[in-house]
């Protein structure tokens, strides 16, 4: 089920790490229009809900993930005057401190890039089919979805 709408330059689902400097470069190179670059990086924390965490395993739904992220980017481009967008999400085994997710947005002025970046992250959290399994001191545990993430996403409605 190849999704023709997915822009593969804007979305990357990958096991390997990414470089913040490289990604910022791709957002900035030959881009004299946009004065603002807003980036967000999410990382693996060493504890969650009171338990020590030693790592994560990230599962996703290939095909639907790209489709869902693509739809989120389309909505962001309609709502804000933004230039370039890049969303990277890692899958597989990750360790403490590893980068998980990157969202980069450029715009002429900062307000649009700030808002669109936050929107993309908030929607990714509740609409993109990723699941985290934590490796804790008490064994493996699938993360439960948090109401706060749902509430945060609904603020954009």
């Amino acid at each position, binding site marked *: 089920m190849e999704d023709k709408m997915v822009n593969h330059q804007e979305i990357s689902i990958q096991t390997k790490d990414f470089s913040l400097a490289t990604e910022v470069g791709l957002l900035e190179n030959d881009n004299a229009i946009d004065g603002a670059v807003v980036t967000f990086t999410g990382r693996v924390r060493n504890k969650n809900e009171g338990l020590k965490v030693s790592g994560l395993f990230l599962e996703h*739904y290939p095909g639907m993930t790209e489709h869902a992220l693509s739809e989120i980017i389309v909505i962001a481009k309609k709502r804000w005057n933004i230039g370039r967008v890049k969303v990277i999400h890692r899958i597989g085994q990750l360790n403490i401190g590893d980068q998980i997710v990157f969202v980069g947005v450029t715009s002429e002025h900062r307000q649009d890039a700030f808002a669109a970046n936050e929107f993309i992250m908030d929607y990714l959290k*509740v609409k*993109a089919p*990723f*699941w*985290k399994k934590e490796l804790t001191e008490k064994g493996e545990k*699938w*993360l*439960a979805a948090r109401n706060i993430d749902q509430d945060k996403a609904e603020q954009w409605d």
Partner: protein
Amino acid sequence: MIKIVFFAALREQLGCQETSFPCTDITTINQLKKVLVKQNPAWEVHFENKALLSAVNHDMVDGEYTLKSGDEVAFFPPVTGG
């Protein structure tokens, strides 16, 4: 035929990653759930979970969504990426 895939905690709880089903007398997601539970009574507790999400051909849908032959249906827990 309808292809049915399961993800994350649900896949592990069911002990099943993928199955398929003839489309003939199933019309909606809710009816498909009932048929799956009838075939696998141990799955009932997992399909009763109101938080369970469903997608058809990579779009999220609700229980009333009407299925057709060739659809790919996915069932999974609330997502936790990012």
